């Protein structure tokens, strides 16, 4: 299996933001959700996930806080900030434009 997470650096950021747009969750949940939603295609290495999470936090796109998880354990929950939401919207638009452009080219004529 290829390593889609390495495909485009910004892509993983966008995926994380999109995942977290639904609700605040901790790192493991983000990874599992990504895997599940991509139909088991995207298997994000945790070595990439956490640095990305922290980078987004530094950039002010995410905020983090310690909360109790559903199973009663302490975990760090990430949620989207307003700037993060704006960034995600922009990324989505960009991606749509890019992917439609690519698919137009790749479409067998």
């Amino acid at each position, binding site marked *: 299996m290829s390593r889609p997470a390495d495909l485009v650096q910004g892509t993983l950021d966008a995926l994380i933001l999109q995942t977290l747009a639904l609700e605040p969750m*901790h*790192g*493991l949940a983000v*990874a*599992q959700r990504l895997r599940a939603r991509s139909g088991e295609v995207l298997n994000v*290495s*945790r*070595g*990439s996930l*956490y*640095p990305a999470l*922290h*980078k987004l936090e*530094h*950039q*002010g796109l995410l905020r983090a806080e310690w909360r109790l*998880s559903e*199973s009663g*354990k*302490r*975990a*760090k929950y990430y949620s989207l900030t307003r*700037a993060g939401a704006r960034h995600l919207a922009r990324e989505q638009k960009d991606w749509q434009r890019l992917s439609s452009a690519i698919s137009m080219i790749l479409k067998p004529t």
Partner: protein
Amino acid sequence: MVVRHFRAWWLRLAGLFTAARRAQDFDAELEAHLEMHIEHNVRLGMTPEEARRHALVALGGPQVVRDTYRDRGTIPLIESLAQDLRFALRMLRKAPGFAATATVILTLGIGANGVIFNFINAVLLKPLNGGRHAELMGLYSGDRTRPDAFRLFSYPEFVDVRSRNDVFAELFAESRMPAGVTENGLTRLAIASYVSSNYFRALGATPTIGRFFTAEEERPGSGAPVAVVSHGYWRRLGMPADIIGRTLFVNGQPLTIVGVAPNAFHGTLPGLPAEFWLPLGGASLTAIDERFSSITDDRSSFSLMVLGTLKPGVSAVEAQARLVPLADALEAAYPQWNRNQRLLVQRQSRVNFGLPPSGDTETMIGAMVLMAISGMVLVVACLNLANLQLARGSVRRQEIAVRLALGGSRLRIVRQLLVEGVLLSGAAGAVAIGVAWWGSARISSSISSLLQRDIAIDTAPDARLLMVIGAACVLSAIVFSLGPAVKLSRSDLVTAMKQVGPLPSARRRRVSMPGVLVATQVALSLALLVTAGVFARASVNAASSDPGFALEGGILVDVDAAIGRLSEAETRVAYARVLDRLRALPDVRAASAASIVPFGPARDGRFVRHQDASVAATFTVVFSQYFETLGIPIVAGREFTPVEEQRITEPVAVIDRHLSARLFPGRSPLGEFVQLARGDAVDGVPLRIVGVVPSVRDDILAAANAHIYVPFGHQFRGAMTFHLRTAPGLETAVMARARGVLRSVDGRLAVLGVRTMTAHRDGTPDLFGVMLGATLFAAFGLIGLVLSAAGLYGLRAYLVAQRTRELGIRLALGATRSDVVGQLVKEGSITSAAGIVVGLALALALVQLLRQSGMLYQVSALDPAVFALAPLTLILATVAASYIPARRALRIDPSAALRPE
């Protein structure tokens, strides 16, 4: 967007300080992640062990995550720089020999530049009088028909310009004079300045205690008996609070001290500030020389320097233009004195005072040349270190190769080596600051002892020195680290890691980087050695070439009767008695007196005319026995008689051959008449020539010029220098006796100095300059020589060691040891020969440049001794540097050399 970047940066910066806490937080997060993942896996039906293993694998190894995290968490550059620094320290501690050598080499290089720069800094760059000096303008009165003719100002003229100009914020007048100051019965020579009342205000000075001068005290002829003393004078007295009101004897006149100038007040001539200031009105009281007693209300007596500060926003050029109408008005009102005089405004020099106006450009250029030459020492040091780094690199190549193999970036490795370089040069720089302070203080104290006066040169390190040394450190680190660093980090990984030296003969480049570095060092060292050589030659030439008079056994006693207020009649009687007594002293072969001493600072010139010819000549008033005392033979005619020493029987003169040849070419001047003149004005009666003597040199660095001598009976001088001749070795005893004679004849006679003729010569500022040059450049040249020889030695030793195997083969195949040694020395010589050729060209250019300074007395541009000896020294040093490693390499047994394969 910008805000977000800033926020991210800020968090990272903060991260530098909260790193520990944040690492804990992150560990906790990873912990939680693991636990949850294991739980999840267990829910999926794995055993706990399996669940744990899967979770760990998925996490991708906690340490890797942590590292990636940390690189993001703080500013990596700063953190890795700190890492580099720690690593560099560790590496240097592992090689203390290298670290020490490198620091010493760099200290020599940076220190040499620090000394020179700090001295130049003190003389030319440091702000003076609280920065006021930089604003100071000199006002000059020049003849518009003769571009080089300048004159001083008369007092009424100065007052006119001061009150009627609209460009100067302050305009003041000053006249500096040497004055006899009597303390505890001893009179010494000091610099006093007659100044206008606004002098101190214009220079931004406020009295430490007391007051400065009033307008009434400024008025010429007021005879105000007051003085302001320098802070240094007050300090030497122990800073008495009751200094105000004390009496100071200047030229025999009691003056009341009214004020003390502030500390570090430089006046108008920074290096040599006045020790005492007197109001212009005081000149009528204290001046004994006509130049200064002529500070009067008379428009015809030009005796004042005029300086000032311009109003804000007015430039010197603009001020000069706006002074034209004023000069025209003065010309119209006083055509007798102001015809064709225009007013010139020029920035006041830091090193010159007086006419003609001069800027600091020339001094600056000299300073720059000096800096460039000392810079060569630093370049040699850097090149040397670069080679050391390369040699060390061959040891470190393995370490570097491993780091490259492990994924270290080349940039990071280059940076690492640079950090090491900066660390070394930083350590050297710290020492160099001390060296610079010490060295420049030494130069200034030797100048001070030469002039026998305090000179105000502040050599304490300042921000400027720190900046220059800092820049030298960084630049030299770049020079000596960057090249080797780039080269080393490019090294072929596989070869290096195998730790087998490359087969040297396989691909030996003709021109190698270390070879070029060594050749450049040799070239620069040669240039330095040649410079040292020509300066040494110049000082030897100047000191040893025949001055025209005898130095050994000569004694000089400076006396000024005017300071003690003796009248002319009293002085004549006193001087006659002094000479009688001196001549009667045991061990004194001859004694006389003269108004001017060769090589001395005082000058007195006249034009000597005969018919239409007019020749400039040095004019000396002498007693009888003068020529005998100085060991000057009489070529024709006679000396002056003791009678001529006392009164005029008939106006007579003795001239030297030089003057005789100019005025009376091809015939005897005896019995001919000459006329003295000052400028255009005839001075006195015609003089009959009674004797001819050989020429003497007035300046230690100049050829002999024309001289005319007249007897003391003809011309009176209060200030005379007594000359004594004794046998060499007896000077000290005779000097003490001479002092006793002067004291016993008349206590009022001020003895300003007693010294031997040789000491007098050695104390000549010109000779001092040349000797200082010789010493400095000899030190530079020696450093260069040692460094480049050591550099070549190191290079050859390294190359020869690499070739042990090849040499072994050659020996085994039947080459003799001397063949091989010859070959090796020849190879080394090619490197140094290239350097010597380039160095000779460089040296020629440098000597040409230095010759223009006039300091290289009687040294030709291609001085054979220097241009033969300097390269020879280098050749010997470099041959030795190639020979010794070659010898050592051949001590090994050929079969042993072959075996390691």
